C-alpha cells in the first residue's frame, strides 16, 4: 500500500530501479549482511488513519487534567504567564517552522533576522553585550556557563553553586561537571538567600566561578551587587540565572557587574508543554565572546551592499573546530527563541513592566491573605517577586489535596525537596483576585 507521505505513482518505482540498473528494492540493501536483516515487521502498532489517530490523541489528553481546567499556583521554574495569541500565528507559518538551520544565508534571512532581533532583546533585558542564538533550556545553560568560567581560568578545578538554584539545575551542573573532574561546591542559604560568607570559605584559588539564581528557587530576592563584588574579589566569574520577567523591573545584571547572565526563557511566551521545549538564554560581555558556545548572528552585506544577516564566529563551533569546540551544542532553540522574541516585542516596553507589576502585586496579595488566615507561618524575611515559600502549620499533603477538591493546584510541596511542611506558591498576572480569594477561603475551611 502506498503511504500518503510517500509520493510514488504507478510504475515510477520500476522506472527508477531500471535507471539504477537493479531489479528490486532488495538489491539496494545488499550491503546489509543477511544475519542482520530483519525478517519480521517491527513490533509497533499498525498504522492509524488521520481520524483514528486524532481520536487516540484525544483519548490520551482526557487522561490528563490540564491546568486550564484548574486554577494553578505551580511555578518552580515554569510559569503560567499569559501567551499572546499572535505568537502561535507567527510560529505556525511554514516559512519559520519548516525551515532548516540558516547555513545558506541567502535563503534564510527570515530566521537570521529573527535571531538577530532576539539577541538584541536579550542584551537589552540583561544589560550584557552579546547573547547567543539560545541554548536548550535554563539548567543546561547554567552548566555551559560554568564551562565558560572553567575555560576562562587556568588551573581551575572547582566551581561554586548556590543552594538557591533550581534543584534540577544543580543536578544538571553536577552531571556535566562530574565528567570533567570538576568539583561542585554547594553554597548554603542563610535565611532564604545565598550565604556569601560561606562562599568565601568554600572558594580557593582554583575556583572558576559561581552561579546564583535571582529570585532564587524559593522565590526570594538575592543580593546581586554583593555577589558581583564577591566574585571579583575572589577572581572568579559571576554567573547569574534570572527570571526574565523580573528584569522588566530590576536593574540589569550587566550593569551590576555580573559576568554571565543565563536563564530559562519559558516565561517568555513559551507556554507549559509538560516541561519543554523551552529555550535557555546566555548573554556575556565582549571579553568572553570567543568562549561562548552556540550560534551567533551578525549583520553583513551582500554583493550589492544590501543589509543582510549571517551566522558568524563559527570557528567556535563543533562543525568547524570538532574536538576543540567550545561545546558540542549545535541546536539553538530557534522556534522557541522566535516565540520569546514575539513575546518581548508584543509586550514591549510597557507590557513587560505591567506583567511584572501585576505578578508582583498579586503574589503579595495572596501571600498576605494566606498569612492572615493564621494557618501559615513565614519562612524567610527577605523580599520576593512572584513566588514565595510558606510553612503550613498543619499537614501540607492534606491541604494540597483539599485545595485540589476546590479545583486549585495550591503550589509545590517542598517536602519532596527536604523542606517539611513548606509550599512554594507562584502567582502570575493570569490569576485573579477572585481565584486568590477562593484559595484563601479554602485554606480557612481546611484549617478551621
Amino acid at each position, binding site marked *: 500500500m502506498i503511504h500518503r507521505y510517500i509520493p510514488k505513482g504507478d510504475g515510477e518505482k520500476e522506472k527508477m530501479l531500471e535507471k539504477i540498473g537493479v531489479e528490486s528494492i532488495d538489491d539496494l540493501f545488499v550491503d546489509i549482511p543477511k544475519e542482520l536483516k530483519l525478517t519480521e515487521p517491527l513490533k509497533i502498532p499498525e498504522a492509524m488513519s488521520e481520524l483514528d*489517530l486524532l481520536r487516540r490523541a484525544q483519548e490520551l489528553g482526557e487522561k490528563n487534567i490540564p491546568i486550564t481546567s484548574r486554577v494553578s499556583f505551580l511555578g518552580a521554574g515554569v510559569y503560567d504567564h499569559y501567551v499572546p495569541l499572535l505568537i502561535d500565528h507567527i510560529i505556525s507559518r511554514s516559512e519559520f517552522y519548516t525551515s*532548516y538551520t540558516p547555513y545558506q544565508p541567502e535563503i534564510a534571512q527570515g530566521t537570521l533576522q529573527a535571531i538577530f532581533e532576539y539577541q538584541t532583546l536579550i542584551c537589552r533585558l540583561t544589560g550584557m553585550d552579546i547573547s547567543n542564538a539560545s541554548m536548550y533550556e535554563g539548567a543546561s545553560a547554567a552548566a555551559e556557563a560554568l564551562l565558560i568560567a572553567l575555560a576562562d581560568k587556568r588551573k581551575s578545578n572547582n566551581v561554586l553553586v548556590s543552594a538557591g538554584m533550581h534543584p534540577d539545575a544543580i543536578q544538571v551542573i553536577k552531571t556535566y561537571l562530574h565528567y570533567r573532574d570538576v568539583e561542585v561546591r554547594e553554597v548554603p542559604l542563610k535565611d532564604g538567600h545565598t550565604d556569601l560568607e560561606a562562599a568565601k570559605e568554600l572558594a580557593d584559588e582554583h575556583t572558576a566561578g559561581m552561579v546564583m539564581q535571582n529570585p532564587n528557587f524559593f522565590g526570594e530576592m538575592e543580593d546581586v551587587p554583593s555577589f558581583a563584588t564577591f566574585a571579583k574579589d575572589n577572581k572568579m566569574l559571576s554567573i547569574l540565572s534570572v527570571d526574565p520577567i523580573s528584569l522588566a523591573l530590576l536593574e540589569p545584571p550587566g550593569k551590576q557587574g555580573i559576568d554571565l547572565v543565563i536563564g530559562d526563557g519559558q516565561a517568555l511566551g513559551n507556554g507549559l508543554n*509538560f516541561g519543554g521545549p523551552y529555550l535557555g538564554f546566555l548573554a556575556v560581555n565582549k571579553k568572553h565572546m570567543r568562549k561562548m558556545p552556540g550560534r551567533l548572528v551578525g549583520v553583513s552585506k551582500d554583493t550589492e551592499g544590501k543589509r543582510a544577516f549571517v551566522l558568524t564566529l563559527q570557528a567556535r563551533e563543533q*562543525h568547524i573546530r570538532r574536538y576543540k569546540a567550545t561545546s558540542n551544542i549545535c541546536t539553538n532553540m530557534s522556534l522557541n527563541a522566535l516565540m520569546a522574541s514575539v513575546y518581548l516585542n508584543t509586550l514591549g516596553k510597557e507590557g513587560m513592566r505591567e506583567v511584572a507589576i501585576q505578578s508582583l502585586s498579586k503574589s503579595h496579595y495572596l501571600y498576605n491573605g494566606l498569612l492572615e488566615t493564621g494557618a501559615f507561618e513565614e519562612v524567610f524575611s527577605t523580599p520576593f517577586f512572584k513566588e514565595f515559600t510558606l510553612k503550613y502549620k498543619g499537614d501540607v499533603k492534606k491541604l494540597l489535596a483539599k485545595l485540589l477538591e476546590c479545583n486549585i493546584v495550591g503550589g509545590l510541596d517542598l517536602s519532596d525537596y527536604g523542606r517539611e511542611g513548606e509550599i512554594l506558591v507562584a502567582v502570575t498576572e493570569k490569576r485573579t483576585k477572585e481565584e486568590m480569594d477562593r484559595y484563601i477561603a479554602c485554606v480557612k475551611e481546611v484549617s478551621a
Partner: protein
Amino acid sequence: MKHYSTLIFEISREGKRGYSLPELDVPEVSPDVLKSPIREELDFPEVSENEIMRHYANMSQGNYHIDGGFYPLGSCTMKYNPKINEDIARMPHLTQVHPLQPVESVQGSLELLYELQKDLCEISGMDAVTLQPAAGAHGELAGIMMIKSYHEKNGDHQRTKMIAPDSAHGTNPATAAMVGYDLVEIKSDENGLVDLEELKKHLDDKTAGLMLTNPSTLGLFDSQVREIADLVHEAGGLLYYDGANMNAIMGKARPGDMGFDVMHYNVHKTFSTPHGGGGPGAGPVAVKKILEPFLPVPRIVKEGDKFVLKSDCPDTIGKLRSFYGNYGVLVRAFAYIRTMGPDGLLKASENAVLNANYLMHILKEDYNLPHELICMHEFVLEGMKDPGDVTTLDVAKRLLDYGFHPPTVYFPLIIKEAIMIEPTETESKQTLDSFADAMISIAKEAKETPEVLKAAPTKTPVGRIDEVYAARALILTYDDLLAYREE
C-alpha cells in the same frame, strides 16, 4: 521570496502598544518592596499588534522551507513535516500541562511518552530509552556519559580513549571532549568505512569505546559492522551509534542487532518533526540492558496500570536538563510513528534509499562519484567532472537560482569538494528529475559560462553575503549597529 531587512527597532514609535491585559484587580505593589536596584527603563520596542504580524510575515518571506521546496541536505533528513503532528502537539489537554503537576493528573502525557519509549526500543533493537536529551548532540552527550559511568563502575578508570572515524559528524569529537575523553580519530578506507586494521591498532585496555554511524556519512552501509563490534567488545570497549542516518534502515536492520550498546535518535530527522530554523529537536537515547542503570532520571516507567516518574536509580548519570525532555517535539514523533506503522516506516526507508540511488545514478555522469557502490539514503559526490575553477560552493550558490536548497557541502571532510545529497522518501520522481536537471545544467554552465556560477546567486532576496565583513565588524545587536554607524 523577498528582501526585507527592516528591524522591529526601526518600526517602533513611542506610545504604540501590541498587547492587552486585564486591569490589575488587587492593590498595586511598588517594586521598592524588592529592596533591590531598580532599572530606570526597559528599552523595548513599542509596536502595535498588526505591525508585529506584518513584520514577521515579511521577514518569513526571506526563508526557504520544506513546505515550499526540496532540501536535499545530506545527513539532515529534511522530510515533510506532517500537519497532524502539529495539530496533536497543540491539543490543549496534551499541552496545557505543568511538569510538576500531581502525577495522577498527567497520566495521558506519560502514557504517550511511555509508548514512544517502547517504539524506539523496538525500532533500534535496544532495551531501554530515555527521552530527556534536547537534541542529537545532547543525546550523544548522555550516551558517552553513560559509557564513562559504566567503565567507572567497573573500576576501569584507565579507559580514557574514545575512537571515532575521520568521517564522523563534528559533534562526535566535540562530545568526547565534553565528557573528558581523549579522542582518537582513525582513518577511514577509500569508501569512508572503518579500516579494520587501522581500528585494531588503536584498540587496547585504554579504549572506552567507538562512535560510529552506519550507514556512514558517505551513505554506505558497513557490512563489517559485526566484526567491528566484536573487536571493540573484546577490547572491553562499548559501541556508540550516531543515529543521524536511521532513515536508511528502519524495519530493515537495527543498531542493537549490529552490536551497538547505546545510540541516539534525531527525531527531527528520522521522525519528521520540524527543524524550526535550527531547533527545537529532540535526541532520545536507546541502550542495551548493561547500560540501563545509567540512564538519566527521572525515568518514565509503568507500575501496575499507572505511569510514574522514577528517580531512585543509584547508578544514574543524573540529569542533563530539567524535567523530561522536549515533550512538544516528542508528541510529534509519536504521531508520526503511529501514522506510519511498521509498514510505513519500512516503506519510508526503502523509498529514501531508492530516491538516493536514482539521483546518484543520474548525477554520476557529470559529477565525480568516489565509489561504484550502491548507496543507502544519501550519497556524496566529489565535485564536478571538469570543474575548471568552479568550486562546490559555486554549485551550491547557483542551485539557489534554480529554486533549490543546496545539498550539504564540504562534508564529510575526507571527500574533497564534497556534495552530500539526501533526498528523503517524501520527494516525488518529478522533483528528483527537476533537481537532477538543474545539477546537470549547472555542470554545463561551469564549462560554458563559469562567470554565471561565480556571480550566483542572483535570484535570491540577497546575493552572496560577505562573511568576513560580519566577522570583522561583529555587529551582533541593533545597538552595535547604531554604534557602528556613528563610527
